[in-house]
């Protein structure tokens, strides 16, 4: 009876496993093999011969690739740090259960629910110097910057790209933190207050350390999403001005789907995946381990 149950379990799981293998594992392995082959769709609709590590070596001498690496790192740092800080600040403000806060919390999910591509389009429209509402507000509030074409300047373009991401993610992160704050034991905080700690000290020495496991998990999740930033690059900046907002994922897409160099695009994608894997491993191994002590 026991062995039959074991057998039924696998039969029931088989369709899901087959779909998973077909849609994830197979493309994963296929693209890995492709990364060692010459395959330009302009020459052949099927992969050609093996070229060893040529595609990987080319990446390390490709200025466009390195530019996209630096853009991705810069964007990731800005978007992760600001999303977490703003998310935490919103969570602390809305933590108390009042009617207004409950209403505000329900609004928080909307920016996150918005399609990333649509975020890019909307922000591009709002920043248009001819008829953009955000551009008009900024011109009014900061008249000394009224000549700035926000998406026409490299650093501002990266900033606004990060803002679209923060605008979507900070409220979601706030919701996660609100949930975590509600689950924290109140006894330690009350004890600290009785001992004379002020609000900041309670937050810094009691609340924040207790929140740390959640902060680390959310940080990892947000980092992964930031590193693979693509949609808003396409719809907000198109990678410009120049190459100022060409993230690594966007660069890989261009190599594969615009320039039809599938071998090179596969190699770049694997560099991205491997880097992310190492980052996630180190992050979890050391930071999470530290938290468990």
């Amino acid at each position, binding site marked *: 009876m026991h062995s039959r149950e074991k057998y039924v379990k696998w039969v029931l799981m088989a369709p899901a496993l087959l779909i998973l293998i077909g849609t994830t594992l197979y493309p994963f392995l296929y693209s890995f093999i492709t990364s060692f082959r010459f395959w330009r769709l302009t020459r052949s609709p099927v992969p050609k011969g093996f070229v060893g590590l040529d595609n990987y070596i080319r990446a390390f001498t490709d200025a466009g690739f390195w530019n996209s690496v630096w853009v991705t790192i810069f964007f990731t740092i800005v978007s992760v740090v600001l999303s977490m800080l703003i998310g935490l600040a919103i969570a602390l403000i809305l933590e108390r259960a009042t009617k207004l806060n409950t209403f505000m919390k329900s609004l928080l999910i909307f920016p996150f629910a918005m399609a990333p591509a649509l975020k890019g389009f909307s922000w591009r429209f709002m920043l248009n110097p*001819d008829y953009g509402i955000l551009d008009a507000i900024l011109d009014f509030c900061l008249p000394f910057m009224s000549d700035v074409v926000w998406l026409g300047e490299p650093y501002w373009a990266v900033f606004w790209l990060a803002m679209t991401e923060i605008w979507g993610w900070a409220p979601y992160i706030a919701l996660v933190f609100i949930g975590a704050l509600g689950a924290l034991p109140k006894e330690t905080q009350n004890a600290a207050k009785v001992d004379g700690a002020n609000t900041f000290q309670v937050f810094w020495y009691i609340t924040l350390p207790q929140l740390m496991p959640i902060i680390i998990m959310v940080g990892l999740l947000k980092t992964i999403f930031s590193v693979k930033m693509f949609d808003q690059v*396409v719809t907000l900046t*198109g990678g*410009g*001005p120049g190459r100022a907002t060409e993230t690594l994922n966007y660069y890989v897409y261009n190599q594969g789907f615009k320039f039809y160099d599938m071998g090179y695009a596969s190699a770049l994608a694997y560099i991205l995946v491997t880097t992310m894997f190492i980052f996630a491993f180190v992050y979890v191994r050391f930071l999470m381990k530290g938290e468990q002590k």
Partner: protein
Amino acid sequence: MNAKKLVGLSIGVVFLLGLLMGPSALAADMPYGLKAGMPYKGTKLTFLVHNAAQSQAQAKRVGEFTELTGIEVEFLMVPYPSLREKITADAVAGTGAIDLYCFLDGWGPSMTGFLTPLNDFLKRDGIDLSEKLPPAYIKGGTYDGTTFGIPTRGHPQLLLYRKDLFEQAGVAVPKTWKELIAAGKAIKEKTGRDGIAMYYGKGNAAQNLFLWNAFLKSGGASIFDDKMMPAFNSPAGIEATQYYVDLLLKYGVASPGSKFFKEYEASQAVAQDKAAMVIVWWWHFGVLTNPEKAQAVVAENMGFAPVPAWEGKGQATLALSMPVGINQASKNKEAAWEFLKWLTNPDLEKANFLDKSDPKTRTIVVVQKKNLVDPEINKVSNGMHKAAAASLEVSDTFPMLPEWPEVAAAIEVAISNIAGGADTKTEMDKAAKEVTAIMKRSGY
């Protein structure tokens, strides 16, 4: 001569006439050279095309084709930005699930592995494209002497301008770049609107090269030299590029947003009564004269004119087309060819253009020579099609190379940087170095 001999002779004469007059005579009862007798009845075709008003109008009338041939056609419409991705994914899968693709001319050479050569079909059915289409449109569907697609949508560039603002400023419609700058300054000074909306931004099919090409070519420079190595960083090329961006940087007649605008945003700057001129594909005229899409004062006052040129030099503009080709992996190539013949017939194009029952169809265009000079069409468009035909005479496509998308991306970055204030020569040299590497990697 007895009756038997007479019948035999008659059959022989009819057969010989049939041979001499070609297939068109044998299918004389079928329009557009379609095969008689519905040999592909019951076939179902899938046509992948972008979601333009033109495609919607074609889909609306496809029942006529089904009635004539018994072939059913499903229009698979996707937004233009994802069209290439969709073609690539389907073509690489190689299942033949989609029978026909509509593609941008510049993509064609890089997609020849996915497309069926059409030369044999054309020859068999006695179709001479040069009789039907302007040379730039034929070139847009051809690579290395082989035809891979026939366009149903194509665009020449035109200068679209506000007649009322020109009148207020007391300036004439510019014929040269110098006159355009002078007109732009006068308009800015007297009406408060920006002279022209340019689009130097990056990110959508290298749109910032559309007008750069006009400056470059009419300035006597070229993108490549005879050995297919970059020539756009020659002194003439640098001068043309500098002049192109100086509309914004030096003369200040372009909208400030031009620095990051894409083509549609430049057109919108005019639609929103912010700028007086824009040089774009002619279909934008349909948008700018539509009171639902543009401010009323704009819609009532739009005019069109040929693209200006350098002083004392010839005019040179770009033409863009969207050919339709047959998937190499299609299992219904003959039926697909029948559909392509119907889709590219001038009667369908004319009927679609003249049908103004839906305001969304204002952006429908014609590409056939016959229709470009058709009096009825020109009456409706106030002669724009004749002006377009003249523009097409001096138009050319971008270089038809498999490497073009990669080359264009390199130059696109340079233009975007230059419009942001970077040094023109440095950026163009950098782009030329990149393009040289691309071309060498491809064996040039």
